[in-house]
């Protein structure tokens, strides 16, 4: 498995991207909208999310109705998801922070 690592962008790079993002043309926005719709209508159940839920952490396949499992500790939820990734049962693990944003994105060696 490989972990997607983030290198910290410089302040200038961040500002440049912010400016670009806040001045997207309508066609760029449409492009993002279309990609988003396409992705949302094709949830991949082999992509597993580790999500905070009221004092617990759950693992859940994308688009699934129910959680796979509930854990008391984040590290146990992440370990279970990693185990599934290592054994080829899933092809990506997305670990969310408590606020819902992404902490880590782990992919199998194969291209997704």
């Amino acid at each position, binding site marked *: 498995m490989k972990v997607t690592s*983030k290198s910290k*962008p410089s302040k200038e790079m961040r500002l440049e*991207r*912010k400016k*670009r*993002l*806040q001045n*997207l043309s309508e066609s*760029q*926005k449409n*492009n*993002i*909208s279309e*990609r*988003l*719709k*396409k*992705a*949302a*209508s094709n*949830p991949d159940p082999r992509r597993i*999310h580790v*999500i*905070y*839920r*009221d004092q617990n952490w*759950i693992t*859940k396949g*994308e*688009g699934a109705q129910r959680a796979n499992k509930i854990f008391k500790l984040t590290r146990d939820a992440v370990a279970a998801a990693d185990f599934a990734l290592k054994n080829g049962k899933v092809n990506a693990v*997305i670990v*969310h922070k*408590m*606020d*819902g*944003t*992404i902490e880590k*994105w782990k992919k199998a060696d194969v291209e997704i």
Partner: protein
Amino acid sequence: MSFDRSVFINCPFDKDYRPLLDAMLFTIVYLEHEPLISETVDSGIERMNSIQNLIRQAKYSIHDLSRMEAHAAGDLPRFNMPFELGVDFGCRLYGGGNLESKMFLVLEKENHRYHATLSDLSGKDIESHGNKPKTLVRKVRNWLGKIYNEKLIGPDKIWEGYNEFLSYLSITLEDEGFDADDIEDLSRSDFIRYIKDWISARAAL
């Protein structure tokens, strides 16, 4: 969207509040309402005009007073949020017509903190979110459920959908040459647009 499905949001727009605002926006759209926010108007008069218009357009309002505090020792607390809450209450009291049916959810950081600062609010619907987006999702969903007196989709489902949405938006932005962290730099009107795209595509499954 109609008056009956619009929700005016009175909250801070700083970076620290962003995770709470984003989760709130997602919840409101998920529950088929239109969030109305005023984030871009800077000048005092224009800002108040814009807020006044939004308040008149919405039957529902969410006022988050959790940041009614000084940033640092010696700073003065921010009073924009309680001021806008007062304007909204005034609109219900004196606006006439359908404005008399306006309903409010007031959010706080901790239970009963408002007793010390805004005791006139006693007896109103006040909920605390503890600065946790997941708790905020539940409070907003429960408030709307109580108003409509019906069983809405569970807060866990909304929260999990929100987490998935954020991951999709991150991938999409990365594909467009941005970074996942850049989500916080999107204008909220674009953010709301993408929430609607995701929810409509998911609902069609």
